[in-house]
């Protein structure tokens, strides 16, 4: 019994290490774009992976699981983040400014799409009707580009 547990836990560790190298930068990039705060992004990406390690086993869809956990952690930190965003976005590039101007749901949807998430997973993660994900995405992309153009226009 002990040998089985030991073997199982070692193989989990190995699988976690492989997953870390495949997912950390993707998770960090998603959180970085979402928050505009690289330190917070790195911290939340680590915390998400810490939670996965403490879980002791890999979920069926580790990438979707990690994104969901990261989003929940971000929501918990949101009040602090929103206060900071007002400070850090001054003078940042137009993509950052445009992202900050999107409604939260559109921003999250756009960023999940950029990470290649399926419509089903996006709908589940953001509690949306799956049948309207494409329409919402088209709207989010259009709004993002308009905000980018507005940020680029010196007038």
């Amino acid at each position, binding site marked *: 019994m002990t040998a089985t547990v030991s073997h199982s836990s070692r193989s989990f*560790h190995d699988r*976690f*290490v492989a997953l*870390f*190298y495949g997912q*950390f*930068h993707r998770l*960090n*990039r998603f959180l*970085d*774009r979402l928050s*505009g705060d*690289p*330190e*917070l*992004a*790195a*911290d939340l*990406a*680590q915390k998400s*992976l*810490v939670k996965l*390690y*403490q879980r002791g086993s890999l979920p069926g869809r580790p990438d979707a699981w990690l994104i969901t956990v990261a989003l929940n952690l971000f929501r918990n*930190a949101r009040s*602090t983040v929103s*206060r*900071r965003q007002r400070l850090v976005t001054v003078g*940042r*590039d*137009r*993509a*950052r400014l*445009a*992202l900050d101007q999107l409604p939260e749901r559109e921003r999250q949807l*756009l*960023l999940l*799409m*950029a990470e290649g998430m*399926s*419509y089903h997973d996006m709908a589940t993660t953001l509690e949306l009707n799956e*049948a*309207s*994900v*494409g*329409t919402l*995405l*088209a*709207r989010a*992309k*259009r709004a*993002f*580009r308009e905000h*980018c153009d507005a940020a680029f226009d010196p007038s």
Partner: protein
Amino acid sequence: MLHSTHLDDEQVQRFLHQEYTAQPGSLLRHLEVCGECRAGLTGAQREEDEVLALLAQADHAPPNIEVAVVVARARRRRVIWIRWAAGGLLAVGLAGAADAAAGSLVRGWMSALAARSTRTPGPEVVPSAPVAAVSPIGGIAVVPGASFVVLFQDAQRVGEARVVVTDGTELVVRARSGAATFTSSSDRLVVDNRGSTADFDITIPSGAIRVEIRIGDRRVFVKDGTRITTVAPASGLYRIGLTRRIP
């Protein structure tokens, strides 16, 4: 069956992302004959390419985090949790033993604790308005705002503050010897230490964005993001003298 109307946003996006499952044959046949929809699809693809390129502009350089650091953090938290649980069990055991003694003060404390625990639990409260401790107490825990100041009202004749940064979520100030009066709000914690000779332990959450510690109008410690500036030697445990002279 041929699509009789042009593709809408939902259909275009699903086609782009290979999420289109309903009658793909009819969609393809429509695209073969409808130049307007083909142009719309090409435009949507171009727009997506531009959006992805613009998003990449917002990226910061990725951090250099090793998997060993994450694993160690996960294991450390587990150990901390076990220590807290063990400490709690020990405290309950000691309280039970003390309660058995006739006339014990512990009985009164336990009664008060039991009365508090029977209240209906409410949501976690983050102090947003000033809250003053009614009498000198041993410590206080608050969730710090984006920019938070811990203010010791006066320099002391003797005493020091020991500061550590941890993975927790609360900023804790505890008088290790003696007591003090604390007043807190969302951006400030005032320690009324006038005439005190107490030593203090201060725990700052690593997630706190900016925390300053001041003695009167003298700034002795600043945590700004991950950067720490202090009068004390950097060692993980920062020992800051509360006396008038900088040590």
